[in-house]
């Protein structure tokens, strides 16, 4: 089993024969989590879901004070309404996702039939389209509201991304996301890993970067900067623009695979979205 994965990984990465063994996703995840445990020994693992606040006490106080009455609650309410409102054909999102949409733990997942990663936001829109409704925009507004409602009802579920071993394309998607995380991009020449791993917690101008562990657990997010809700892929795009790289399309294969990888790295952590961030 393991040798198959190793074999595939070799092929995918285009490596010639090497003496060092190539790690599979599970080894990757352990090494990833170990890295943060060593870097931030005072942060309990289940606190990384709180983003930068898991390592920045001064900001944490302000965040907790925002959480007393978080602005995303209005979005959860709006999402609840949308979730239960009837489509023209009399059905609703509840027909796809159950009475309260508490299905966060199922996403992102590998869809073998189509050979692609399916995120929760994609699934929401596909449910609409299957019922002859127009899909929502992908970065903010209604998609974020519905996602906020479903995530809220899913709080406490554990991240449990599976890379099925019977489909080599799933591992390829994971590896694609992994490569994305570790490659430098943009004129500023930063990889995700540069800011959110090797210098996580350091100041970039006036901002402290958050640890990459827990990155995908708390979405959608009400960002003070946006003064509204946004999806994870909206944030990915913002990050890329910051380093002067062209952002990829929300829900395209690049960001979906990146979400697949980042979520896998957070396996075992709790989903606690929606959240408030600076």
């Amino acid at each position: 089993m393991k040798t198959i994965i190793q074999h595939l990984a070799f092929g995918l990465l285009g490596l010639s024969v090497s003496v060092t063994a190539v790690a599979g996703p599970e080894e990757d995840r352990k090494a990833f989590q170990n890295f943060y445990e060593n870097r931030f020994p005072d942060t309990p693992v289940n606190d990384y879901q709180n983003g930068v606040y898991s390592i920045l006490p001064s900001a944490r106080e302000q965040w907790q004070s925002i959480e007393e009455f978080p602005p995303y609650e209005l979005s959860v309410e709006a999402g609840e309404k949308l979730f239960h409102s009837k489509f023209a054909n009399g059905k609703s999102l509840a027909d796809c996702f159950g009475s309260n949409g508490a299905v966060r733990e199922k996403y992102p997942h590998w869809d073998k039939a189509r050979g692609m990663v399916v995120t929760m936001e994609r699934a929401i829109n596909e449910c609409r389209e299957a019922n002859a409704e127009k899909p929502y925009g992908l970065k903010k507004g209604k998609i974020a509201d519905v996602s906020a409602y479903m995530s809220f009802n899913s709080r406490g579920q554990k991240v449990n991304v599976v890379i099925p071993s019977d489909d080599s394309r799933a591992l390829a998607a994971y590896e694609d996301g992994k490569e994305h995380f570790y490659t430098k991009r943009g004129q500023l020449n930063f990889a995700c890993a540069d800011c959110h791993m090797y210098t996580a917690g350091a100041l970039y101008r006036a901002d402290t970067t958050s640890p990459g562990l827990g990155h995908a657990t708390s979405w959608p997010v009400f960002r003070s900067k946006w003064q509204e809700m946004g999806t994870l892929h909206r944030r990915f795009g913002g990050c890329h623009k910051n380093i002067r790289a062209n952002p990829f399309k929300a829900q395209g294969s690049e960001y979906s695979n990146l979400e697949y990888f980042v979520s896998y790295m957070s396996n075992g952590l709790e989903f606690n979205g929606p959240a408030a961030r600076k």
Partner: protein
Amino acid sequence: MSTIRIKAKERNGLVSVKSLMKHPMETGLRKDKSGKKIPEHWIQDVVAEANGNRVFSVAFNTSISKDPYLAFAYTGKKGDVLRISWKDSAGKTDSAETMVK
């Protein structure tokens, strides 16, 4: 639906009230995409009543954040009917009521 959300909880004779009011709170300093100034538009007054008695009132400037948050505490009990109302610079008003838990 009201623009006002209220959470009110009693503990040891003290009712803690938290409220969030959906409002743009335009400062008059912001510009829209075409570069035109967006006129100021903000909540000026907020009044809170418990069973019809005023327990808190407040006046805002434009420097209060968008979707204003307000928290206070008064001497009261479970079952109090708490009503919060606002009036903005355009003369609009809104109210909401909740039962203290």
